[in-house]
Structures are given as C-alpha cells and as structure tokens.
C-alpha cells in the first residue's frame, strides 16, 4: 500500500479521530504514449497563444470562464482554488443514515481510511459502532481544492470513504422516455425468465474475472517486441429479431445441463477466495 494521500481528522459529536486516506483502487490499464509514426519520437503537447502564435510557458497560463461567445472572465489558479473554502483538513460527520437507504449509484470514488497518530481507539470505536448500528456517516471533505460530499462506512475490518455524486448530477429514469410494449410480458415469460435467472445465479467472486483485453494487448506488445506480426481476426455479426418465449425456452434447455454462470470468456477458476475476505482473515 503506497503512503497516504491525505492526512486529517474525522469528528462525530465531540469525538476526534485522526485519519490517513489511501486510494482503494488503482488503474491497471495499458497506457501508451503518443508517438510520431514516422520516427517513433514522443509527441509533446505545446501551448500556443492564438493571438501571438507563440509558445506559452505553463506559468503564463490562466483559466478562462466563457460568459458569452468568445468573451472570458479570466481567473488565476489561486482564485479558482479559493472556491474550495476553508482548507480545514477536517471531515465532520454531520449526520448518520441507515446504510440500506443509500443507493450505491451515488458512490463515486472509494478510499480506505487508516488510523492516524493516537487515533487507533477512536478509529476502532467508530468502525465498530457504524458496523453495529448499520449506519453510514455523512460529511464534507476538501481534497485537491475541491469540496466533496462523502460517506464513511465500515468495510470489513476497515473504514472506507466514498466521495458522493450530488442528486442533481444523477439522471432520472423518468427522463429516458422508455417505449411501452403493446402488452406486458406474459406470466409464463416472467416465470421462464425467473427460472433462467435462477439457473445462472451464483456468488460474486471478483477474482474469477480477468481483464482479458488487457492481457491480449500486453501479449500483442510482447509479440511485437520479438518482431512478430499479429493476425487480424474477422468481425462477428449480430443476431436479428426473435421469438421471446421460444428463445427463453431454448435458453432454459441449454442452461439446464450447462453448469452455473461461468465466466464464459475467461474460463477462470472459481476457487480463489475474495481478496477482502482473505485480508480480514490475515488480520485476525
């Protein structure tokens, strides 16, 4: 675990809890540099002033907010940063809510919280109390010059923090204008679909899913590094319209002896335990 990205304090009531924030996720995508095809040289981004047609050093770059076509209010980075409010290094849990009331769609980025200096007892106390009461603490967090609405909850043996999306940022399902079918699905169709869901039902084992695409890209890179040329496969075609009931029936026929919801594309083993479970075991 890399070192913490933010140190501060969580409070609830008069209880003060020094904490460290760690990122809970990391990006494993394959990253390329942009290069010039002709000579393989790196592409660099150059800032050009549209008036002078000359390169602008980073120090001379300001931020412009467009107020009407082509007219900008110009601000310095410091002025924009002032909007963050007090840089208090404090997350005050102003209220608590029942965990099941929160639709996880509001959770944006996840962080792990660790106990800061002399914060261990209060950390464990908040963790155990949130877990027992099945509550989530709600507060505000200023991070990288921006204020976030955050949720603090017990995650296994740890405290986790989620930045949250504001209600007005979420698209309402009513605005989608979904087409209504001429008739509802029949009882038989619902029953068959239910049976199909049941036959494909299994526990969630995150480790059984691999990023096959990432692995193929890395293989391609290795092959090219050895001087090999890759093959080009043909694109696949889609199926057209269908008879719903017949398709459901046929699916049930195939899934009855086809085993339960395998990760069909990776064929990964399902024996490895969840990473979260493994960790809590190692801790105790």
């Amino acid at each position, binding site marked *: 675990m890399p070192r913490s990205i933010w140190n501060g304090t969580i409070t609830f*009531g*008069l209880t003060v809890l020094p904490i460290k924030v760690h990122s809970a996720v990391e990006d494993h995508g394959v990253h390329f540099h942009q290069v010039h095809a002709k000579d393989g040289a790196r592409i660099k981004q150059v800032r050009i002033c549209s008036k002078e047609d000359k390169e602008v050093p980073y120090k001379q770059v300001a931020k412009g*907010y467009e107020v009407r076509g082509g007219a900008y209010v110009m601000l310095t980075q410091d002025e924009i940063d002032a909007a963050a409010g007090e840089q208090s290094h404090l997350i005050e849990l102003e209220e608590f809510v029942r965990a099941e009331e929160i639709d996880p*769609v509001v959770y944006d980025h996840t962080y792990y919280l660790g106990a800061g200096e002399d914060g261990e007892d209060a950390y464990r106390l908040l963790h155990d109390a949130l877990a027992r009461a099945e509550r989530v603490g709600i507060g505000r967090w200023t991070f990288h010059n921006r204020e976030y609405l955050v949720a603090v909850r017990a995650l296994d043996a740890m405290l986790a923090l989620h930045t949250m999306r504001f209600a007005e940022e979420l698209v309402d399902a009513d605005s989608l204008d979904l087409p209504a079918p001429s008739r509802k699905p029949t009882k038989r169709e619902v029953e068959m679909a239910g049976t199909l869901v049941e036959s494909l039902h299994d526990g969630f084992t995150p480790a059984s899913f691999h990023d096959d695409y990432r692995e193929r890209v890395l293989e391609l890179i290795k092959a090219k590094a050895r001087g090999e040329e890759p093959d080009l496969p043909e694109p696949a075609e889609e199926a057209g319209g269908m008879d719903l009931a017949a398709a459901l029936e046929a699916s049930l026929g195939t899934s009855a002896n086809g085993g339960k919801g395998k990760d069909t594309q990776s064929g990964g083993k399902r024996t490895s335990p969840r990473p979260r479970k493994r960790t809590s075991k190692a801790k105790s």
Partner: protein
Amino acid sequence: MARSLWTGSLSFGLVNVPVSLVTAVRDLDLHFRQLHEKDGAPIEVQRWCANENHEVAFEEITHGYELDDGDQVIVSDLELQAVEPRRTRTIDIGQFVDLADVDPIYFVHPYFLVPAGEDDGSARAYRLLCEVMSRTERAALGRFVMRAKEYLAIVGERDGALTLTTMRFADEVRDPKDVDAATQKTHKPTRKQLDAAVAVIEELTCEWLPDKHKDRYRARLKHVVDRKRKGKTIKAPANAGQPEPAADLMAALEQTLEELSAGRSGRWSEKRTAETAS
C-alpha cells in the same frame, strides 16, 4: 435525452435485447479554457514531434509502449483493433448475483440501458428483464467492449429502467493489508464506549435525503467567477486548525450525549475549540 454512447444487444441466454447505453451522470462542473495571462487570448494545444520540433497531424500519430528496459514498441490502431474481443456489440450476461453481494468499491461509472430496437418484441424483452431483476433483487454480470476497452459490468434495474455500471477487476482493488485499521485487541472499545458511540450515532441519524445535499463547491466557484467578472478581488479563506484527539474517549462521548439531549447539537467545532482552550 442523453446521447447514446454505445449500441448493441444485451444477450441473456438466447434472448437478445437491442439496447443503447446512455450516461446516468450529468456533468455540471464549470469548465475553464486555458488563456494566455498576458493578453487573455485562448491557448491552443498542438501536438509536436519531440524529435523534429514541429506540429504533427493527428493521422501521423500512433501508440508507443515503453518496455521495462526503456525500449519502445510501436502499436498501430489496426493492431489494437485486432486484439479486441470478437463480440464487441454484445453485453454477454453470464451470471446473476445478489445485488447485496457486490460491494460498491467495484463500481466505476453508472449508465442506463435503453431499448434500441424499433419492434415491440425488443420493448417487451426489455420490460421482462426489468421485471425479473426487480422481483429477484438480482443483478447480471457481463462483459462488453466500448472504445477499445473491455469492461466488466453489472446490469440491474432502477425505477423501471435497466442500469449498467462498469466495474473494476479484482486486481484493481487494492489489498488493504497495510492500512492501519486498528484491529489489535488493545484498541477494542469497551462495551460502555461502544454503547455510547452507537447512542450518539442513533441520535444523529436522519433519513437519507439526497436532494438536501448541495454542491457548495460549485456554488462557491460560480460566486468567484461572478465576483471576478464584476472586477472584485477574490480572497482565499483562512485555513482552519485541526482539533486534537481527546485523551478520554468516554468523556467526549458522554458530553456529546449530554449536548444532544439538551438539544444543543449545532456547531460541534466551537465546542471542541472551547474545550481545548479551557
């Protein structure tokens, strides 16, 4: 309605539901353009070849991957396309899980799926999936490819519409073994402390009302822009101090409960300051 980002079909057993993907999140951020401070002219970002030191057209740019030894492998768009999975227009549902089993730590971006087929059959198949998932509180796990990347996704139902949320793979979620979660026996709260902490939490519990919480940052940023537009100066707010952890957890909890029962719950920060000052 939002622009569709991807169109294909949701494949569920042998049932195919033509769908398109629209984002479930609106970008309400204020966006700024880079300006040259001296003359206020917009800045244009150009791609230059570091070797030849002149601008390069977009078509002349390709991908370079740096190997551990510092050597570079050049990979073209065509070659990358060649390793894309075959069924790029299908969200292949392989498994249904209990929604409660999937921790939100795996979620990346939420979308809605909307029916893309014109025919009545597609609309009915869509409705059927909604109904079954809502009834069983199950969600579907599947894979699909969008913009040259393969995603793991979870398909569920919300307010009569199908949702799709992209997910992280297990190895992208960090192992928390080095996070100090204070799990040693010595940090275990006493029953009395835990009871008091739960009592504080229950006292401070209210209904989750997402609309109540506003984006104060965006409002302040708008205010900053407005002030600047009127030629006023912008002052950065003072940095506030940090409270010290209380030596006696039980005393802090008991005092919180006292304040709460006396109906004096506002402004904990002032009370903490008063306490450390006294």
